[in-house]
């Protein structure tokens, strides 16, 4: 009856407090960073990640603050909650479209100012400001160079984002803008939704289920349903939730034995890929050993599965409850996520200064090990080749280790020189490397670069194509409003070439 439900409620409050204390500090700055992550910016101007992305206060409306103190009268609570939230909501769900410069939210107005100060008008009459990055880049059209480059000022009335320097240029370039106008409007509404201060039920992630509950990895909807998420009915909520979850779920979807990628042309997995993944799945789906909590139930435990996330930028600041979703896909497996990269502390300013370099921690890594017992997260602000040459992680074991690169820009002209010393080492470790990319062109460029640099010493594990668990939300690049991208659009995998010993056939030398 009434008392039973109250006890359940205070049990729920008590049970969720420990995780809240772990993740609350991660939530605040992490959510702000990933919401305002500008992927192409970091790819293009790799050293300017210092540019602070505007903070988003959506963490205010997370569950921890919204649970009201329980009362004996159940009828009182809903009205109390409604009052609190209506004072905090800035925008109603039907009022989410505002031009950026006149937005009710100060963060978005600041963002509009950033765009107006930094982005250049894409009209072909201007002179080019940078070399084009892809065949679809609008800089390709700027061949004539009639007028000097001008910053964007004029906002499109349909999408509310400044895209042109003047109305004349906007009108004459309208067809190319029409291609992305709908997407830009969607981005506009989604960004306003994040600052609207509403209650976000979609950001309550479920805990791990019992082991026999299988997860269905056909698409996002079946995955969320089989994992026990609360129903995400609205498309906008789906976009918001997949934007963060794409990082752990992409990794999980490739490594899990029920992954949608299988042998065959449609399944995209190559036989070499099956070899590498089978070795990993041997550890990721361990047989039952009869382990128990008493002395008789002691069993030797394998070392954790190490996932090296190289070139980590905003991924390292994702809320830890998002990363812990990866460990919920694999029961009885412990994970060690290692974020390595010069920008791995992006948007994590609260955690500075880094720990001192001591003999037991020679590279001053930040280690977070209170994440529920199944996962440990370490962050190294170093290049991978430094750690490799110091043999800090040696030996690499193909049964336990994998390398993940989230949109590394391997072939991107601005960042490929940083990957050149690292690539031969990655291939020498012989562990599978899972790579994602923003677009198909991005991925193909990365593959071409790897093939050229490796000189044939690499095997493709997973053919590149669209990632089933890509972010459904499109992100705007503040330095170029015409460049929209979505996180982890495509995924592919490679590994150092494996040579088989073969029978000596008696060749004459």
């Amino acid at each position, binding site marked *: *009856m009434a008392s039973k439900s109250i006890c359940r409620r205070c049990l729920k409050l008590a049970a969720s407090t420990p995780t809240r204390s772990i993740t609350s500090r991660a939530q605040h700055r992490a959510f702000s960073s990933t919401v305002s992550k500008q992927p192409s910016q970091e790819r293009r101007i790799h050293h300017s990640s210092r540019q602070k992305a505007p903070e988003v206060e959506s963490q205010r409306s997370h569950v921890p603050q919204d649970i009201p103190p329980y009362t004996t009268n159940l009828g009182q609570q*809903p009205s109390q*909650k409604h009052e609190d939230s209506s004072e905090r909501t800035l925008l109603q769900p039907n009022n989410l479209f505002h031009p950026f410069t006149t937005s009710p939210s100060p963060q978005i107005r600041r963002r509009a100012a950033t765009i107006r100060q930094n982005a250049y008008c894409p009209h072909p009459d201007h002179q080019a400001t940078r070399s084009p990055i892809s065949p679809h880049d609008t800089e390709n059209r700027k061949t004539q160079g009639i007028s000097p480059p001008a910053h964007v000022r004029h906002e499109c009335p349909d999408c509310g984002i400044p895209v042109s320097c003047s109305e004349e240029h906007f009108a004459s370039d309208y067809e190319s803008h029409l291609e992305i106008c709908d997407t830009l409007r969607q981005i506009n509404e989604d960004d306003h939704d994040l600052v609207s201060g509403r*209650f976000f039920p979609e950001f309550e992630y479920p805990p791990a289920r019992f082991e026999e509950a299988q997860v269905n990895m056909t*698409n996002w*909807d079946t995955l969320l*349903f089989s994992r026990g998420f609360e*129903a*995400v009915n609205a498309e906008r909520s789906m976009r918001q939730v997949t934007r963060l979850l794409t990082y752990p779920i992409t990794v999980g979807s490739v490594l899990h034995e029920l992954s949608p990628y299988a042998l065959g042309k449609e399944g995209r997995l190559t036989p070499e890929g099956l070899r590498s993944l089978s070795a990993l799945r041997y550890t990721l789906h361990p047989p039952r050993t009869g382990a128990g909590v008493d002395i008789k139930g002691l069993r030797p435990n394998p070392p954790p599965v190490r996932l090296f996330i190289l070139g980590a930028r905003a991924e390292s600041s994702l809320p830890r409850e998002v990363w812990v979703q990866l460990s919920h896909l694999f029961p009885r497996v412990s994970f060690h996520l290692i974020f390595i990269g010069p920008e791995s502390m992006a948007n994590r300013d609260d955690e500075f200064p880094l720990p001192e370099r001591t003999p037991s921690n020679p590279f001053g890594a930040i280690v977070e090990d209170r994440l529920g017992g199944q996962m440990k997260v370490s962050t190294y602000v170093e290049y991978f080749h430094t750690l490799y040459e110091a043999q800090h992680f040696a030996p690499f074991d193909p049964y336990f280790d994998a390398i993940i690169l989230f949109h590394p820009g391997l072939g991107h002209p601005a960042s490929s020189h940083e990957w050149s010393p690292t690539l031969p080492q990655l291939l020498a470790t012989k562990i599978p490397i899972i790579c994602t990319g923003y677009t198909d062109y991005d991925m193909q460029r990365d593959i071409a670069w790897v093939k050229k640099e490796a000189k044939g010493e690499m095997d493709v594990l997973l053919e590149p194509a669209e990632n089933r668990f890509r972010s459904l939300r499109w992100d705007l690049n503040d330095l170029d409003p015409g460049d929209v991208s979505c996180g982890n659009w495509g995924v592919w995998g490679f590994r150092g070439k494996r040579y088989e010993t073969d029978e000596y056939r008696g060749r004459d030398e």
Partner: protein
Amino acid sequence: MRPSQRLGILGNRIPQSSYYDQHNRPAAALYRARQPYLVRNAVTGVCIVGFVAAVRGIDTWTIKAIGQDDFSDIAVPDAPAQPPHTPNASAGVRSAGSAQ
């Protein structure tokens, strides 16, 4: 906002899945989750129903086919004058007598 809890007649909480709305109809998320399987399951269902219908059809035809047999050439004996009360006991006495 979360919908307020559903209460039963006794005031207890009725467990409510977020995948169904207030009138217990599947919500959009459930429909999307089922979508890859809708056509396949419908075809499977039609096949099963068709199979059952075919079996029923075969059985009814079989019974009808057998039922067409003509039994008019067999004479049905008349009903006995006295209905036997204890057929087992009288048969036993008679046989005991004949054995002796």
